[in-house]
């Protein structure tokens, strides 16, 4: 018998007694997450938003299409959420603005993740004096009035969206660095790392195979919680007129425009505001649920 067919294989070597299957950390976490109704609802809403932002534009009119004769009209069958003063469909603008807000949230979080994880991992793994100096720098940077710097950066260097990613990412990495560093520091001292060393594995293998998978939990949790805070900062800047610029619109600029004309056209404020808050709520619930499921301690170090 030269070729073993896949079907025949298990029968030949299947043990008579079934071995009890252990659960991995991720499977356990998934089971716990599924039980948390708020987190599940948050997750479903986040997925719904993603689908809406990606596929929505195929089904509604272009976000810049104006209809000056129509002007601002209240919600109706033609325009489910009404139109703004230029007769532009609010739903289309919301979808487009939400897309930008979420993109800013994701990319700026990635920037923060990249800087924070690298910095924290180096500090934690190096330990000793290097660690002390690197963390002292983080402490000092915590004391800087960062919102002010982001505002200055945006005013001085033109308001383009790439600078926005960078500026927000540069603000948000500090906490990530602290978390990763603390985690690496405690894992480094554990026995299984010692065992890996005793087996003669190199630094690279220890870092990538043993330390990084164990740091992943807190990083995922914190990333989920960073996205809403990044979106908040972006909206804050857009509200001050410093974030996303016309003709692009983000949820922040929509809220700003809505607030300017809320006395006559309530829907221009209410729907963007509701959309924005719902997005934040569901991301936060998802993050909290993940934290409980992965059993991450929330302490600072």
């Amino acid at each position, binding site marked *: 018998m030269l070729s073993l067919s896949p079907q025949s294989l298990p029968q030949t070597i299947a043990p008579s007694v079934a071995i009890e299957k252990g659960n991995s950390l991720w499977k356990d976490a998934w089971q716990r997450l599924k039980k948390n109704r708020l987190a599940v609802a948050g997750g479903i809403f986040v997925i719904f938003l993603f689908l809406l932002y990606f596929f929505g534009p195929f089904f509604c009119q272009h976000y810049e299409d104006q209809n000056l004769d129509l002007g601002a009209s209240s919600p109706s069958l033609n325009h489910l959420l009404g139109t703004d003063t230029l007769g532009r469909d609010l739903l289309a603008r919301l979808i487009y603005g939400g897309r930008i807000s979420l993109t800013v949230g994701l990319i700026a979080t990635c920037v923060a993740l990249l800087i924070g994880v690298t910095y924290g991992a180096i500090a934690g793994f190096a330990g000793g004096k290097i660690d002390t100096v690197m963390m002292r720098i983080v402490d*000092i940077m*915590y*004391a*800087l*009035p960062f*919102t*002010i*710097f982001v*505002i*200055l950066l945006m*005013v*001085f*260097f033109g308001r383009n969206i790439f600078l926005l990613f960078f500026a927000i990412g540069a603000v948000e990495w500090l906490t990530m660095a602290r978390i990763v560093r603390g985690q690496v520091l405690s894992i480094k001292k554990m026995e299984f790392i010692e065992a890996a060393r005793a087996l003669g594995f190199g630094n690279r293998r220890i870092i990538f195979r043993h330390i990084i998978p164990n740091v992943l939990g807190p990083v995922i949790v914190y990333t989920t919680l960073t996205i*809403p805070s990044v979106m*908040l900062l972006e*909206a*804050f800047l857009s*509200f*001050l007129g410093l974030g996303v610029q016309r003709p692009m619109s983000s949820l*922040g600029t929509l*809220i*700003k425009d*809505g*607030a300017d004309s*809320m*006395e006559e056209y*309530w829907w221009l*404020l*209410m729907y963007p*505001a509701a959309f*924005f*808050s719902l997005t*934040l*709520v569901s991301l*936060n*619930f998802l993050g909290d649920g993940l934290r409980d499921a992965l059993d991450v301690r*929330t302490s*600072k170090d």
Partner: protein
Amino acid sequence: MLRFIARRLLEAIPVMLIIITGTFFMQRFVPGGPFTAEKAVTPEVLRNLQAYYHLNDPLWKQYLDYVYDLCPKKFHPLELTHGLDLKAAFGIDFRPSFKYPNRTVNEIIADKLPVSLELGAWSLLVALCFGLPLGILAAVKRNSWLDYLCSSLAMSGICVPTFVLGPLLVLFFAIYLGWFNASGWYSPIDRVLPCLTLGNFYAAYIARLTRGGMIEVLNQDYIRTARAKGATEFRVVMKHAVRGGLLPVVSFLGPAIAGILTGSFVIETIFQIPGLGREFVNSAFNRDYTMVLGTVILYAGFIVIFNLIVDVVQVWLNPKLKFD
């Protein structure tokens, strides 16, 4: 204790220097200046203006002169009672403003800072008055409907940011109900909406932190001891648990106060309040070099001082942390 404070103050000096240097040179290396906008000035006027602001000196000399002017040279805190003049009290001179040539930045700060401080103080009060009781209640009645109510209130407070809540409150209470003015900062009643708006987010955050901290403390042995000794539940919570349970809140308050100060940018814009936050944003737009630097330094100084106070209070609350 005194050594700890002295060391922290010494450490603050390089931090402040980094901030001053960074802001100073960032402004100068950016294209455009305070006189490029609006109506062009004639060459003679421009020359006079540049001479007035010492813009013709080499940059390093301007920088050193500026830093020298900033250094505190005397200590008469009592002078602060006659108007907030930092120059009279400490010899800190922020120089004349570029946008309003006949006013100094010191004067503008003395004029606007009290408004922002009042807004911040009331907001902080709102945050503590709502946040602490909600958090303690949620922790004591853990996993009851009361806990769920408090927790979801806190979550909604975090997810409805100031620039959403502010306009909504104005729309409802000022425009539909007509109870308050939509904007302005004249009578005491004008304080209500802005302070509620600004305090809301921090109240929510404080409630969450209080709940977490209290739950952790209530599970500890010394609480069981206190109960075993026959202390009433009220005494256990308010005397034994609160001291440890509020630690996370206290460490949050340092950054929170900084946040309340910077958060006022949006509030002051929404409610048309003549405070320092709005002045800061405007000065950045106008390239008002000295005004931007003055406000940045002031905010950074506040953050440094409040972080220091927070650290001291933390040790007082938790004797396990000694000043190291």
